[in-house]
């Protein structure tokens, strides 16, 4: 056989070899250029909770940095986002941060922009109650995308809307107040109480937790007052508050809390802290420091958080997670003390839950994200304050803590005094998908049994 013929015979082998090499190269390329996962965050940079915008982002960016290899762009400004970050080679790209203002209408507009214009695959947020109801409804209409809550705590978001692709690892407003009704009636001796709450879904839910439990043990709520969110002059609402009750539960939050308390004092004289219980805003880092020491002694509902818990996990979360990735969280200053804020913690655990879901599927979000959504349902989070897992409606079953305000060195400080494990959104069987949603007149004040009454634990704390 001539050399020429032999060469011609080799040509098919050469072609096959070339094709094989090309295929191998392309496969290798495919491995190294795994598809990008586009992440969007929806925060409130305006409105009643606009001051907590950087706390929201600190939670997200810290979780991305701690668990997905990202790095904050600016350790003093969480809103700048992160660089790097991936799951199994799939880059986690921040495509946008939405700026909402506690209004559902704005939240939907921003969600559309983030998901449809910027093409996000997953959304982390929003911050507040009615926004989350609207976003959960949006999620229902977009089943191929995945949504995790930020810090919103309206009950309807998970109990009524029940979007299969919307997940919430933080509690709702009612869950966060577990233990307070029992405390008011059995420890503080309140037999009657008045309730004032912002007139929107989260505050209704927050008030519902106190009312349901206080009435469950035998208390009577004689007056419910609901000023609209973003009210600037609370004087007419403060005037409506009765003084012939044993105590008052206050669920006015965000920018409204201080103006409400000032209006209350103008109407009824100096506040006696022992006759007040506040919801989470009375203990939120960045907010409670603005309260007067006159509220010393008041009890405070938490947000599934206990910043002073004397456990290695709690200390590590504050100092070696939030405090490691951020030096300051504006406008409130040093980062570590803000780790237990409902906003920082809420956005942190929800982002962490998302990352764990992504890790479980190796970053594969193909197939309409069905595998990812199934994986997130199974996520168990060993958080700084206890273990969280999801119920059948994708709502976290969480540990709940409540606190008391006291004075330390002449300044107001927060001490955790009560702990109730495994609170779920049915609130011990009080609420269900068919019960009337929390509102101005619901829940009704009725006596019933709750599993944690008389069983509140007292955790060991620092300070």
């Amino acid at each position, binding site marked *: 056989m001539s050399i020429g013929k032999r060469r011609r015979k080799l040509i098919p082998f050469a072609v096959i070899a070339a094709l094989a090499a090309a295929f191998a190269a392309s496969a290798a390329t495919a491995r190294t250029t795994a598809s990008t996962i586009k992440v969007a965050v929806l925060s409130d940079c305006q409105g009643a909770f606009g001051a907590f915008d950087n706390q929201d982002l600190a939670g997200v960016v810290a979780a991305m940095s701690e668990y997905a290899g990202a790095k904050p762009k600016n350790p003093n400004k969480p809103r700048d986002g992160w660089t790097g970050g991936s799951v199994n080679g799939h880059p986690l790209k921040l495509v946008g941060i939405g700026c909402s203002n506690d209004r*559902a*209408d704005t939240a939907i507009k921003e969600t559309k922009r983030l998901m*449809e214009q910027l093409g996000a695959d997953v959304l982390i947020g929003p911050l507040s*109650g*009615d926004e989350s*109801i*609207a976003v959960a409804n949006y999620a229902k209409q977009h089943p191929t995308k995945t949504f995790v809550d930020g810090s919103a705590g309206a009950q309807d978001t998970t109990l*009524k809307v029940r979007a299969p692709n919307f997940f919430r690892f933080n509690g709702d407003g009612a869950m966060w107040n577990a233990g307070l009704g029992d405390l008011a009636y059995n420890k503080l001796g309140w037999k009657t109480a008045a309730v004032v709450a912002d*007139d929107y879904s989260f505050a209704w839910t927050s008030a519902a937790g106190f009312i349901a439990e206080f009435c469950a043990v035998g208390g009577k709520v004689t007056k419910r007052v609901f000023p609209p969110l973003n009210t600037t002059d609370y004087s007419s609402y403060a005037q409506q508050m009765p003084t012939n009750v044993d105590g008052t539960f206050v669920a006015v939050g965000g920018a409204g809390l201080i103006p409400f308390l000032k209006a209350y004092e103008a109407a009824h004289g100096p506040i006696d802290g022992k006759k007040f219980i506040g919801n989470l805003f009375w203990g939120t880092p960045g907010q409670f420091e603005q309260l007067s020491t006159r509220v010393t002694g008041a009890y405070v509902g938490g947000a599934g958080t206990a910043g002073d818990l004397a456990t290695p996990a709690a200390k590590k979360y504050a100092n070696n997670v939030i405090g490691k990735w951020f030096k300051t969280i504006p406008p409130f200053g040093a980062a570590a003390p803000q780790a237990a804020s409902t906003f920082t913690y809420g956005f942190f655990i929800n982002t962490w839950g998302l990352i764990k879901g992504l890790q479980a599927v190796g970053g594969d979000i193909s197939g309409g994200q069905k595998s990812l959504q199934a994986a997130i349902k199974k996520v168990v989070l060993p958080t700084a304050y206890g273990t969280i897992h999801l119920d059948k409606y994708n709502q976290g079953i969480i540990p709940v803590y409540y606190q008391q305000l006291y004075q330390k060195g002449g300044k107001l400080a927060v001490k955790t005094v009560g702990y109730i494990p495994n609170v779920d959104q049915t609130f011990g069987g009080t609420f269900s998908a068919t019960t009337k949603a929390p509102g101005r007149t619901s829940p009704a004040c009725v006596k019933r049994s709750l599993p944690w009454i008389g069983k509140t634990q007292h955790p060991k704390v620092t300070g």
Partner: protein
Amino acid sequence: MRAAVTPDRVVGVVALVLAAIAPAIVSTYWVSVLLTQMLFLGIVAASLIFLSAYGGMVSLAQVAVYGIAGFVLGNATTTGNTKGLNLGWNPWLGVVVGLAFAVAVGLLFGALASRSTGIYFLMITLTYSVIANLFFGQVTTVSGFGGISGIPTPKVVGTDAHPNRLYYISLAVALAIYALLRYIVRTPFGLTLQGLRDDPVRMASLGYNVVLHRTVAFGFASLVAAIGGVLFVWWNGHIDPASIDLSATIDVLVIAVIGGLYRLEGAWAGALFFVIINNYSQRIGFIGPRFHTLIGAIFLVIVLVSPGGLMGLWERTLNVFPGRRRDPLDRTPIELGQAEPSV
């Protein structure tokens, strides 16, 4: 007789062709969000321009009426997972009831406001807008602060439908409304309305019922605004008091003024400009969430440089060329603050 080829008609045909082929030349987001939004906001602004340009009534109640249609539709069609009445009716029945309710309220608003003119009419309609916002914000039986979410749509524009479908339906509705408004202003009713705009005292002395004519015109404009409200709810799936607050009310006035308060086409030109600025200004670092500051500045420039808005600018550009015949509809824009005598 062949229609004369004028620059207006050429631009109109080009705009129509571009609108028809938009899904082929721009992104899905542009079609399903920006352009669809432009169409229904344009419809609401057209109802304002109709009242303003042909009836001499600058109304700030159009967003209230648009919201009433939306809230009624939401209450009628939702099924238990949101605020409101959750009546669970058929989406089409909800549309009919929403439109009927909005027109009825519009006629009532019109009957009360049509005895005043100028700044007084403006203030009364602003009051309607505030009342509607506070009503839906405070009355939790029908809405409350959080509004109504998850509002179902007819299958034709449902979640399973192609995203372009709502755009094309909005486009067809906008064109139909534009044609209807153009037709109405040339009918005896429309000509009478223009007579009332120019000299209500003389028209009254000629035997025309000024108040009734204005009320009916307001009711008709309410129907147009309500159709915009229905398209908004189909598009958004949600409505809450913030959708019809003072800011939204002013937005529609800004759209009409930027577009040109004296020509119907200005409604959609202004809406397109507004929607694009609203969407893309957020990407500019120093503007960020300060959209209303930016649009306020643009509004100021438009009022100072071209009181006729974008349409006025277009007219002025054409008038630069010699021999151009002025359109018979051309005239000085209505002075917002000019108080006309009450009738």
